[in-house]
C-alpha cells in the first residue's frame, strides 16, 4: 500500500484528506506547514505528498521547491484554493505532479494519487 504525507495548515482539511486517502492508501504523517513537511518527509520517506499552498512558517510553494531540490523523486500533488493560472503553472514547473483546486471532489483526490503510480 502506497504511503502518503498530508500537508495543510487547517486541521479540518487534514482530517478530510486522511478520511479520503486512507480508504486506498496508508497516511503515515501530517504536517501543518512547509517546514514540518520537509522534516517529516526526510524522516518518513512517503511515496506521495499532498501539499497546501497558503501556510505560515513556510508556504507550500517554497516547501515544494525545497522538497524537489532535496528529493528529486518526491511525488507531490498540490491541494489548494489558490488555483490561479500563474500559481498552477508555477507549481507544475517546480515539479508538482498535479494540482487539485479546493473545494474538491474526493474522487478527484484518489484519482490524482493513483495516477502517480500508473
Amino acid at each position, binding site marked *: 500500500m502506497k504511503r502518503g504525507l498530508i500537508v495543510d495548515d487547517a486541521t479540518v482539511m487534514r482530517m478530510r484528506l486522511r478520511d479520503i486517502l486512507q480508504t486506498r492508501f496508508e497516511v503515515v504523517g501530517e504536517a501543518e506547514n512547509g517546514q514540518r513537511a520537509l522534516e517529516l518527509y526526510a524522516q518518513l520517506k512517503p511515496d506521495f505528498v499532498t501539499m497546501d499552498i*497558503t501556510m505560515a512558517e513556510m508556504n507550500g510553494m517554497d516547501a515544494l521547491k525545497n522538497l524537489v531540490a532535496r528529493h528529486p523523486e518526491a511525488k507531490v500533488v498540490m491541494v489548494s484554493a489558490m488555483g490561479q493560472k500563474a500559481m498552477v503553472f508555477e507549481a507544475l514547473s517546480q515539479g508538482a505532479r498535479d494540482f487539485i*483546486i479546493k*473545494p474538491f471532489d474526493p474522487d478527484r483526490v484518489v484519482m490524482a494519487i493513483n495516477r502517480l503510480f500508473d
Partner: protein
Amino acid sequence: MKVEYANPFVIAAVQTFQKEVGVRLSRKDLKVKDSPVPSQALSIIIGVTGAVRGQVVLSMDENVAMAVTKAMLPGKLPVELKKLINSAVSELANIITGQASILLAGDHGKIDITPPAIISGGALKMDFLNLQTICLSFLSEVGTLELNIALTEGHS
C-alpha cells in the same frame, strides 16, 4: 474600491457554500463602509497582495459556524466539532478568497493571500485598515453571514 472586485466574492461565496456546506446563500444587502470592521461574533481576516491588495473579512454567527463545521466533518460528535470550529471557518474563508482570487487574477495577474487570522467574542478590539469597504450580507437557512471586502489595485 472598485465595485467589480466584489462580484468574484459573491460568486465564490455562493459556490463554496453550496459545495462545502450544502446550503444555498442568497444576497441580503450591500453597504459601503470606511473599514472592514466585522459585525458578527466570529470573524476571519485574510490579507490579499499582488494584482489587488487589502483585506477580506468573513464574519458569521455561531450557528453558521457550527453548521459549516458539521458539514465539513460529517459523522463527528458535537464535542469534537466545537473544538474544530475555528479551523473549519478559517478553511472556508481561505477557499472563498482563493476562489475569488482565481476570478480576479484572470489570465495574467497573480494574487497571494495570507493564512487566515480569526477573532471571536466581543471583548477584543482591533484596528482595521482605513479602506473603503464593500460589505455584502447573505441569508441562508442556517443564519446570516457577512463578507467585508476592502481591496485596492495592486501590482501584478
